[in-house]
């Protein structure tokens, strides 16, 4: 087991390296001169030259990469071009709101999604299934930003039950996490249903029924354990989806998180912030995928690590 994790961690090194190179090259792919971007539009040629030297942009590209990689390893990405503050500081401030938003979205969507999926599989082709699957296919078809606008209008503006913006209390989290989690709940419901339908047709389930167990025990004790194994994998994959989705949802609800920081940074061409955020998002995504693989092995005794 430990060996497997170590092996997987070692396997990440080339991927991380490739991502690092891409993120580094990003600055050089930008149209225009990065030194001029950093110095600002009104800077004199002398200032631009000074900034170029200061950022190390006058050195050979290999040296620049070493400098970038060294900074990245020490979580140092320089300063934001628009606010002049350290990028690491900006990110630290915005990290928790996005983290909690993602966690809450994941929590409710997994619980509801799996419940709908299980109900649909157990009452297959009857009304709970039809209702559940209609909701689910609608959930994957309704864009998050439109859902967010609708929820905000109805529950915050018209009914006034929860605040439309702000993350001061738990009530501020209700609408954004509903919006962000809706698509994930829908995907989980569809996936859980198909996984359960397969399992309920297996021989061991028929055996359990044949020996006279009541249906509830069959579903909970025999089917659930086996059906949930692929569902866990799916859940991990959805984290990446949430990271991406948070970018859109944070704009709708004016959320002070990483997603909005990224959107603003792209608007302002604030490339140190963009670089750091792209690196951070990718890193999170990779770590989560690794964690899911390991978890998958723990709950599925059929898998033996080589």
């Amino acid at each position, binding site marked *: 087991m430990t060996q497997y994790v170590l092996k997987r961690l070692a396997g990440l090194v080339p991927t991380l390296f490739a*991502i690092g190179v891409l993120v580094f090259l990003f600055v050089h792919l930008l149209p225009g001169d990065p030194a001029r971007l950093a110095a600002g539009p009104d800077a004199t040629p002398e200032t631009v030259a000074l900034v170029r030297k200061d950022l190390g942009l006058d050195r050979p590209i290999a040296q620049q990469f070493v400098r970038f990689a060294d900074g990245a390893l020490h979580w140092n990405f320089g300063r934001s071009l628009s606010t002049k503050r350290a990028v690491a500081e900006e990110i630290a401030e915005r990290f928790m709101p996005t983290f909690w938003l993602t966690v809450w979205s994941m929590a409710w969507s997994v619980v509801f999604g799996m419940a709908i999926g299980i109900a649909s599989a157990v009452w297959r082709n009857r009304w709970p299934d039809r209702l559940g699957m209609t909701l689910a296919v609608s959930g994957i*078809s309704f864009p998050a930003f*439109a859902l967010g*606008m609708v929820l905000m209008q109805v529950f915050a503006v018209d009914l006034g039950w929860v605040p439309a913006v702000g993350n001061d209390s738990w009530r501020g989290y209700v609408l954004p996490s509903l919006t962000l989690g809706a698509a994930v709940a829908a*995907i989980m419901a569809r996936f859980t249903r198909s996984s359960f339908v397969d399992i309920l047709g297996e021989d061991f389930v028929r055996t359990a029924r044949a020996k006279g167990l009541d249906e509830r025990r069959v579903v909970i004790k025999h089917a659930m354990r086996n059906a949930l194994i692929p569902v866990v994998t799916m859940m991990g994959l959805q984290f990446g989806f949430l990271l*991406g*989705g948070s970018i*859109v949802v944070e704009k709708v609800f004016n959320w002070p998180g990483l997603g909005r920081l*990224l959107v603003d940074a792209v608007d302002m061409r604030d490339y140190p912030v963009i670089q750091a955020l792209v690196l951070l*998002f990718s890193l999170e995504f990779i770590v989560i995928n690794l964690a899911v693989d390991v978890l998958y092995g723990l709950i599925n005794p059929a898998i033996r690590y080589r």
Partner: protein
Amino acid sequence: MGSSILRSATDDAASGERVRTPWSEFSRKFRRQKVAVAAGVFVVLLVVVAVAAPWIVPYNAETYFDYDALNAPPSLAHLFGVDSLGRDIFSRILMGARISLAAGFISVAAGAVIGTLLGLVAGYYEGWADRIVMRICDVLFAFPGILLAIGIVAILGGGMANVIAAVAIFSVPTFARLVRGNTLGLKHLTFVEAARSLGASDRTIVLRHILPGTISAVVVYFSLRIGTSIITAASLSFLGMGAQPPTPEWGAMLDAARSDMLVAPHEAIFPALAIFLTVLAFNLLGDGLRDALDPKIERV
């Protein structure tokens, strides 16, 4: 499976019925699914409307302004109402269908073609070609889709063409992995070995014998991905990185409607419904295709 099709074909031929081909089998299974057929009809209608839009719109979507009816609700003159600049929302929705359908279709088609070729090469030759292709896929998968798109837009600048390129790039690894998996499974089957022993070239084996075996999975993913891609493209426009005003793109229209939600909710409702119904139709069609072609393909 091959023998059962053969047997049923001879039975049918003996009883004087039509021979069952894979195509007739597919159309029989597909036609049984009323919802998917309805979704398919809706998609066809949408395509017709999108193609004909410039000739059927009641008003010009970008240059017609009715200054006396700013934010007017739906009426006979303006079926979906008027936006805050005095433009006819119905006309803009129709013209927007062109943009969203083109964005969804072009990006996924490009991703599917490139991904399928890479998947065929990786799965058939294995070895270093496989390692390189799969490593690239890993790197692309390491970025959540929309993040990759934002990165590309940040480099290339905003605009619909760049959004389409971005969505195409992150469709590639999905298709590459799917086709690679199928290719690995198919290439050791007897009919491929038979072709090889007859002296068929690699090219013939891959294109004539393996590619057709991967097509059904690609078709299902194609339909399901179009829905996702339309949402992604609209999301980028909503974030201000895709279509720029005054282009009547649905996501951009929703973004513009945000400030008028109180006085003119119809400005948001119609573009939202347009995106929802379009994506829903592609998803229902994809589900139906999957059930008719291969129920074992799982949606990711």
